[in-house]
């Protein structure tokens, strides 16, 4: 799983590529939390447009980052989700907490 973290204008953008499962997402989780806590953005954008597979670990990842961002008063947008990713996020109720585009 590859990822890139960019920060500009108080917006932290995390672009992910590959397959999100319980194994692959672990190192990304730590890196993103580290970036959130050190840079304290007001908005976190999770770009899923290059994700080819995602199971419910993706929902856990989104909700975990929502909790961190929420505790800092920030918001989360999930961008570039395909039909299937949207379905998993919506089914799990993530839409109540984060914006799914």
């Amino acid at each position, binding site marked *: 799983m590859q990822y890139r973290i960019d920060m500009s204008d108080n917006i932290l953008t995390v672009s992910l590529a590959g*397959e999100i499962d319980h*194994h692959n997402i672990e190192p990304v*989780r730590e890196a993103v939390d580290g970036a959130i806590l050190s840079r304290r953005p007001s908005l976190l954008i999770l770009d899923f447009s290059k994700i080819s597979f995602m199971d*419910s670990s993706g929902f*856990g990842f989104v909700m975990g980052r929502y909790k961190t961002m929420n505790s800092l008063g920030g918001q989360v947008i999930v961008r570039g989700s395909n039909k299937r990713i949207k379905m*998993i996020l919506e*089914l799990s109720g993530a839409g109540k907490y984060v914006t799914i585009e």
Partner: protein
Amino acid sequence: MKIINEMKAIISSKSVNEGYARVAVGAFIAQLDPTLDELADIKTAVSEAVTNCIVHAYDRPDGKIMIQVKLYDNNRAVIIIKDWGKGIEDVKKALEPCFTTSEGEERSGMGFTIMETFMDKLRVTSKPGKGTRVVLEKYISK
């Protein structure tokens, strides 16, 4: 209905095997000529079931997980995922959306709900201390 082909694999309960498990099952079922959506449904459900074995059934990487796939002549695929781990106390409760026993970890409690949504049939049997058996079924469109 006759079985036309069958595979069985045993993998260790290491999280790195989650990717292998779904790809192996997907590759075997490919001979029924599923659509991309059907294949993605199956891979997602297998990923959930195997992750459950790794996260919940065993808390060690040397547990064994059995994956079995049977293909039937009516275009039906049956996938059995079995572990010999700690088992589930209350299966009915485990099947409820958002129910999870993992506190600190980021588990969604949506695994069984996703398996149910993406597959045509889900059957779970478990015995505390003995293990869990998950049966997933999918009809592949002709």
